[in-house]
């Protein structure tokens, strides 16, 4: 005897699995091409070509197959584990980094519901009630991978890189959390889907317009959390050889790189979701009964926004010089955290004021 509820839940499981695999593939594809994009953009900014050889046969196609070539190369290279390294942690570290970055994608709303085969499917792996907190929690774990890798290598440059990661991440996580507190006060919920829907309508409904300071703080701390230029001190190559991944080679190194780009890509999605209306289109109302087309459009809209921020990541990397370590911590603790606290009070005060005078904020 088949219970109806089990069938329902089986269908639900299948549906969720498909959505998960689909989103996973898309994200991985974007990440793979982000590595190519980075080098292309670097080339453009430095007035050179960048990789342009790996094409199909005679057609170079701007090096379209470069990610595949890179991946193959990573797998082919000799995998070296230093003698004095802590073997288990050394192997675990890159995996952990990649997983911690990847788990973020579970909570990000990549699109609205789509209707397919008569079923309404949400383009989000899990509509977690505490979406923002979930992402903060997972994001705060990313540090372990890098710290573990740096420590397990048994190399002083790696160790320094690991140490820097820890202090940097801890400091900027606070900024990030405090910036998001202000956002959550305004939206009244940490659920990401709700936040996106609240931002639909005219373009000034986007949170970036109501939280300019919060956005700035959040954006800066995202750079630090992804350890991207100008905050890439964990791997600062002219001080620390290559920082935490000095001893890594082959696919383990590849996983670190891949993890970094995954982190960046998902962070871009997160920024778009929180401050730039997510998958909504300005002035276009969210339809009551979304069809397949709307679902695909919303999915595309989010990615357009996200790709823009991904581009900014790269643009900044090839434009700004690196901070010094003490400057980084000084900026975090003495400038950004007080500003973030001020931002919370400002937001709360303004909301109170609006409520008092009956203006919808």
């Amino acid at each position, binding site marked *: 005897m088949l219970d109806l509820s089990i069938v329902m839940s089986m269908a639900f499981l299948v549906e969720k699995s498909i959505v998960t695999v689909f989103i996973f593939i898309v994200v991985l594809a974007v990440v793979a091409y982000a590595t190519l994009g980075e080098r292309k953009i670097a080339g453009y900014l430095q007035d050179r070509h960048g990789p342009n050889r790996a094409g199909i046969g005679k057609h170079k196609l701007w090096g379209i197959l470069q990610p595949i070539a890179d991946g193959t190369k990573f797998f082919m290279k000799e995998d070296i584990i230093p003698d004095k390294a*802590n073997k288990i942690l050394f192997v675990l570290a890159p995996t952990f980094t990649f997983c911690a970055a990847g788990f973020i994608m579970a909570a990000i709303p990549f699109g609205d519901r789509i209707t397919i085969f008569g079923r309404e499917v949400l383009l989000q792996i899990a509509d977690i009630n*505490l979406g923002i*907190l*979930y992402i903060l*929690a997972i994001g*705060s774990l990313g540090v*372990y991978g890098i710290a573990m890798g740096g*420590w397990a290598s048994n190399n002083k440059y790696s160790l320094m890189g690991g*140490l820097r990661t820890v202090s940097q991440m801890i400091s900027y996580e606070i900024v990030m959390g405090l910036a998001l507190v202000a956002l959550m006060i305004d939206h009244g919920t940490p659920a990401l889907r709700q936040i996106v829907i609240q931002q639909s309508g005219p373009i000034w409904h986007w949170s970036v317009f109501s939280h300019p300071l919060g956005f700035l703080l959040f954006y800066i701390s995202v750079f630090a959390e992804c350890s991207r230029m100008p905050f890439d001190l964990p791997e600062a190559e002219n001080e620390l050889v290559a920082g935490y991944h000095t001893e890594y080679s082959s696919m383990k190194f590849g996983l670190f790189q891949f993890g970094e780009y995954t982190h960046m890509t998902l962070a871009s999605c997160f920024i778009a979701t929180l401050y730039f209306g997510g998958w909504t289109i300005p002035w276009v109302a969210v339809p009551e009964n979304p069809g397949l087309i709307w679902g695909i459009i919303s999915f595309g809209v989010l990615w357009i926004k996200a790709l823009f921020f991904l581009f900014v990541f790269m643009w900044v990397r090839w434009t700004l010089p690196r901070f010094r370590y003490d400057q980084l911590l000084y900026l975090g603790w003495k400038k950004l955290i007080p500003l973030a606290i001020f931002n919370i009070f400002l937001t709360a005060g303004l909301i109170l004021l609006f409520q008092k005078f009956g203006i919808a904020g």
Partner: protein
Amino acid sequence: MQGVMFIVLALVTLFSALMVITRKDPVSSILYLVLTFFCFAGFYVLLGAQFLAAVQIIVYAGAIAVLFLFVVMMLNLREPEAEEGKELIPIWKPLGYAVGIGVGIVFLSYLASSPGPAIPPLNGGDEIYAMGRADFLGKALFTDFILPFEIAGVLLLAAVLGAVALAKKKRV
């Protein structure tokens, strides 16, 4: 389903907690500690307190344990050399085991013959779910528990001042 998850979580928790105190290498200890924190978060989720679970991970696994790791790494503590000499007072170890086993027996006997906890059970899943929400917790903190909440602030102030007093450069 919940029962199975509880047992799995409980076993992992016990295992990782044991590893925390038996590992000689401090970094492994801390990483197992993080695993233990994770399992606690799992328990919170099972109990319907998702907010606490998230906070548990953000604060304990994401911040406190990271700072432990930072300190251990900065001091570059490796596995300690095998200690020479014997224990100062040989009776402590068996005494510790005896106390531990005694406490275990006490709790098992309680489980076997418990009159049930005096805490009133919640009315079904909805109430449990509601209690786990952030707004519920916020209301409780700012009404019934306002005094402990504020005192905790003063306590943290004291801790910060104390840390600064002990750590700041000597000025002579």
